[in-house]
């Protein structure tokens, strides 16, 4: 009977039921690969990398009340770290022999650099690169978070300052062309340890890797929200002072969720570079950063899987509309911002909560009946919530 219990638990849990994550996993791993050709699937994979950022925003904005308008920073750090590694590999002395200094990335040669700058050197190694992807975004978020939250900068001020930081990073990257590739970004990325990332089989593999990582991040998010930390986070959004005077160092709790969001976004950035084959400052600045927010808002800021659906739906809509009616798209996305805030503050997830959930009630009822029969006493259920 224990199996039944655990199955029941799967569909329980207040924040991001495992059932919804399972459903998403099936859609990502089975339905979409069956429906789409490799071109569309690659596109979906690209959009799913945005979903990482949206998921981070659900955690820190939806649950923690911390709106960051600079999530592009972390997406960018992850993406650039991966791109730097791939670029070094693509710039081996043989294929860059026509340059005046062979063996360094082409844009450096164009800008008359003669050797790899020091901060590029670690990206010779894949291990260090992966560590950088996993650590740098969170470390940077820690710096920002520490500086801001310890000084009790929050709310609108935090949003504006993170936005300004995104602007700063974009300007820096564009301005320091010789070190960063400038406005074009880092392009022409072909192989990962000799493995061609542009052919179809690689794209399939990367798509699945991306989906698995995303599901993994969802599970991490779910775990965090469902333990005491998650409830403190909700409490914090509601009454910060009460939490502080209940004996918590509020700043640390905010820093943690901000770092977690940055960590997840960084993974998304790295997967973006791998699947798309380039990285540029246009994924860091004000516009992409606020687009990530709209993904989370459309999907539902209080729904873990909502961010993923939001990223997919908005991005696909953008591709479809922007191809056919580019002017209309701007009006439409502008209207989406307004409508989501005015009419649907909890996004599509709240629509689902109102109407869609009925579809699953028979299943749940069946489980709860089994549960009730097996444990003998239905009263114990609510008392012993795990």
């Amino acid at each position: 009977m224990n199996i039944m219990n655990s199955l029941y638990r799967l569909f329980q849990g207040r924040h991001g039921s495992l059932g919804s994550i399972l459903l998403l996993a099936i859609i990502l791993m089975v339905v979409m690969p069956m429906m789409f050709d490799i071109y569309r699937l690659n596109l979906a994979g690209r959009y799913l990398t945005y979903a990482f950022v949206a998921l981070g925003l659900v955690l820190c904005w939806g649950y923690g009340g911390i709106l960051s308008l600079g999530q592009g920073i972390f997406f960018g750090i992850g993406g650039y770290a991966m791109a730097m590694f791939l670029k070094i590999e693509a710039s081996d002395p043989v294929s860059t022999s026509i340059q005046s200094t062979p063996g360094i990335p082409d844009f450096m040669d164009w800008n008359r650099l003669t050797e790899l700058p020091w901060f590029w050197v670690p990206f010779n190694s894949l291990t260090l690169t992966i560590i950088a992807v996993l650590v740098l975004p969170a470390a940077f978020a820690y710096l920002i978070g520490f500086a801001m939250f310890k000084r009790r900068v929050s709310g609108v001020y935090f949003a504006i300052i993170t936005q300004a930081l995104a602007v700063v990073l974009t300007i820096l990257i564009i301005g320091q062309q010789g070190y960063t590739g400038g406005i074009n970004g880092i392009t022409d990325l072909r192989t990962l340890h000799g493995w061609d990332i542009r052919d179809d089989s690689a794209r399939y593999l990367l798509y699945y890797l991306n989906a698995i990582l995303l599901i993994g991040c969802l599970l991490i998010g779910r775990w965090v929200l469902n333990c005491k930390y998650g409830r403190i986070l909700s409490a914090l959004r509601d009454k910060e002072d009460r939490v502080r005077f209940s004996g918590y160092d509020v700043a640390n709790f905010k820093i943690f969720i901000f770092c977690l969001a940055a960590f997840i976004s960084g993974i998304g950035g790295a997967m973006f570079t791998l699947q798309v084959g380039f990285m540029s400052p246009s994924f860091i600045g004000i516009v992409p950063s606020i687009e990530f927010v709209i993904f989370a808002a459309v999907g539902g800021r209080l729904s873990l899987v909502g961010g993923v659906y939001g990223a997919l739906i908005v991005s696909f809509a953008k591709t479809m509309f922007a191809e056919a009616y580019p002017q209309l798209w701007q009006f439409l996305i502008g209207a989406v911002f307004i409508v989501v805030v005015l009419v649907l503050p909890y996004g599509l997830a709240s629509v689902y909560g109102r109407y869609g959930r009925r579809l699953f009630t028979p299943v749940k009822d069946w489980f709860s009946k089994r549960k009730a029969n097996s444990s003998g006493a239905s009263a114990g259920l609510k008392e012993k919530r795990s």
Partner: protein
Amino acid sequence: MSGFSSQELLAIFAMQGFAGVSFFSVLLLMALGLAIIYGQMRVINMAHGEFMVIGAYATYLCSITFGALPGMMDYYLFIAIPIAFGSAFIVGYIVELALIRHLYHRPLDTLLATWGLALIMQQGFRSAFGAREVSVAVPGWLRGSYRPTMMIDIPLNGIAILVLTLLVTLGVWWFLYRSRWGLRVRCTTANRDMSGAVGINTKRVDRITFALGCGIAGIAGAAFTTISSTGPTSGSLYIVDTFLVVVFGGAGSLVGTIASAFSIAQAQSLMEFFLGSSMAKVLTLLTVIGILLIRPEGLIASKVRR
């Protein structure tokens, strides 16, 4: 800096200082509107830059209609400024009515909603005026420059904008601190419920305040046309700087806003000469953020027991 003689340095400082004046003027006018709106109703207007663009396009339209009349070319600005103010004011009034009033006390949400509004307005400009930037013919009397010494060259349009900015600032000060309306605005800011109870129509105060802030952005747009050409996305370039000016000045303080607009504009203008514009911008923004972390309440804080 070592390559310059002290006299040259002085001249550079003077010239860059005056070059910064135009930037300062536009920033201040933008920030004034934003600060009034934020101070009054805690609404963050991400579309503020677009209201500036409304003013700029209004000025542009005036310049081609009135400029075509014989003899009017030199004076159209005097008509354009009120029209720029009026058109931005009216649009602001409508926007408050349709959107903003539903969002009071949800500052983070207004941020998103007004961003949506900004996107719509940008596309509106693009549909109406095309994606290409338009520029305004500067009247003859603004074209020259004033040269006190051989090395210093101060453009007249900068001086004119500065005068305009000072007048508007004075007007705002008078409106807020000396007029009946301003009293109502300050009452509503201090205690909304009580103001309602003593018979102030707080909703109307909100609407007028918001529209007024937008109108001032419209004047900023008119000033903007004399230093740069106008495109659909011109406003978005200013929005981050403007926010930082407001926050840095200490929201709700007129003197603070002026001081912060001045220091940000001048710092950027001076550094630009030595470091190039992008590094100057980076350093200015980082410095402002750094100071904000040390003094989150801004330059001039209103101390109230909270």
